[in-house]
């Protein structure tokens, strides 16, 4: 196991490099929170000229924000459900059978996130345009589901590979039919992988902006609202507050999902 390192200690340079990397990753996020309390309305001046909490109240009153937030949540929920179903089906198929083109499935599913987001966006856009489909809530969901599937697929497939086939055989030997085996053996084994995959898919959909700009038409999801503020800042203090809220909303699902996958790989590494 790599964790044993014969009493060796990391050199000072390496430790500093690692700490520097961690700070680089996290300090900017802390700064976002800091700015949501600024009294400065017109610039991003630092040090903050004063501290206030009034912008949280102002943000809560904004109807356009609520509409954008609601749309984002509705999209993320449906896209996540679609990704859970399709991703799990694909993972099950790849796990249990050996068929022609099996390797290609993983490659196919990973394409929407391996190719630049703009490719997926403009491709969907040109297809929607060519077929004269009006832009709507559903065109956004179709776009999001495309790249959320692979997240669920990866999580579930990894869990299938870790699951012991003997459990399924035992269940069948004891007289359970396929559906009972699925309900009582496979599903409980899959539960946390589905939860982790689902939460990551949710987080991914909730703040996706590149594909959404091509599939949304006139509608504004929360990321599109933020993007318009980034290009032409009109409500700086409100944007600061919204940015903090977005980080807070996505933090919990992401943290839990990572915790689950970290734990299951720990148990795998332990004596089993």
């Amino acid at each position, binding site marked *: 196991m*790599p964790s044993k390192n014969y009493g060796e200690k990391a050199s000072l340079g390496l430790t500093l490099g690692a700490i520097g990397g961690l700070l680089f990753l996290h300090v900017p996020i802390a*700064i976002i929170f800091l700015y949501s309390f600024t009294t400065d309305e017109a610039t991003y001046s630092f040090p903050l000229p004063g501290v206030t909490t009034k912008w949280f109240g102002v943000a809560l009153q904004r109807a356009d924000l609520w509409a954008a937030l609601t749309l984002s949540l509705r999209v993320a929920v449906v896209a996540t459900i679609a990704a859970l179903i399709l991703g799990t089906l694909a993972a099950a198929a790849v796990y249990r059978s050996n068929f022609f083109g099996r390797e290609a499935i993983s490659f*196919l599913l990973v394409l929407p996130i391996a190719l*630049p987001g703009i490719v997926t966006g403009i*491709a969907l856009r040109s297809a929607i345009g060519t077929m004269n489909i009006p832009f709507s809530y559903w065109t956004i969901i179709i776009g999001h589901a495309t790249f959320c599937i692979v997240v669920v697929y990866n999580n579930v497939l990894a869990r299938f590979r870790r699951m012991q086939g003997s459990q399924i055989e035992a269940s069948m030997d004891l007289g359970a039919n396929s559906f009972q085996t699925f309900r009582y053996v496979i599903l409980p084994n899959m539960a946390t992988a589905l939860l982790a995959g689902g939460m990551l898919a949710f987080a991914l959909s909730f703040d996706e902006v590149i594909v959404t700009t091509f599939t949304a038409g006139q509608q504004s999801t929360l990321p599109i609202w933020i993007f318009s503020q980034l290009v032409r800042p009109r409500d700086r203090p409100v944007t600061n507050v919204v940015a903090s809220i977005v980080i807070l909303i996505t933090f919990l699902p992401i943290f839990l999902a990572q915790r689950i996958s970290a734990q299951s790989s720990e148990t795998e590494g332990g004596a089993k």
Partner: protein
Amino acid sequence: MLNRLSTYLYQRPKLVLGLLLGPPLIYFLVVYIGSLLALLVNSFFRLEEFTGLVVREFTLEQYAKLFTSTNLGIFGRTAGMAIAVTIADGIIAFPLAYYIARFASPRMKTYLYIAVTIPLWSSYLVRVYAWKLILAKEGIVSWFFNLFGLQFVLDGILSIPGIGGSSLSLSPIGMFITFCYIWLPYMIVPIQTALERVPKSLLEASSDLGANAAQTFRNVILPLSFPGVVAGSIFTFSLTLGDFIIPQVLGNSRFFIGQAVYSYQGTAGNIPLAAAFTMGPIVIMIAYLLIARKMGAFDAL
């Protein structure tokens, strides 16, 4: 009833496979592959100049337009940025990945892993916004330089033609920093995975044979973990290539590929030209993926 259905299905594994694979495969073929084909087809159409409508007849007009000096400049600029970001991220990611893989206790490792992956999944836009705040003329970086009386250094950097600009938040150097920040976790995770797989015994053998730490690093660790670096570079390179948000928010008037595609399809409504433009990054990425696979990067993913 269920038992009979169960037996029926058990005897027909091909049917079960079809039932499992059918929905996701059909969805993907119709929605995704279908869209990519629509994109390809559109790139051979042209736009009627007066009506602004797409004329559906075969032409290579759009591809010819790609080879004007402006557009070649856009490709060059974007590819240059993608290469610079990839190299810088490799350098920043390595120490942290190495520390996590080799020196962190199992408990610490879990927390460090989470600390790296939380930024990876959290809001991309908000993290771009953070750099808009930090790099602003009146923001933290300027304040920091002023604090030590180093304003002239910052002004010096900003006056370099090609990478400078009126302020850090409107310059290629600011974009570079932001790109490095945003894609860094995508580089750390595969490098860490690759480093975990380097057998301890090889390191011991190397030092037994008299190599010092630097030699072991250069001749053993680096070559063995290089597939991880390549795997990470797929993401940093591809994501930089296709991004239009960061150039839009932090860049100047000199376009990147993503911005060009975005503006051609948006304000100009010229889907054929936008489609032809996208073929650039697609071809570059497919070549990159093929090379990466040769170098064993897919095993490190």
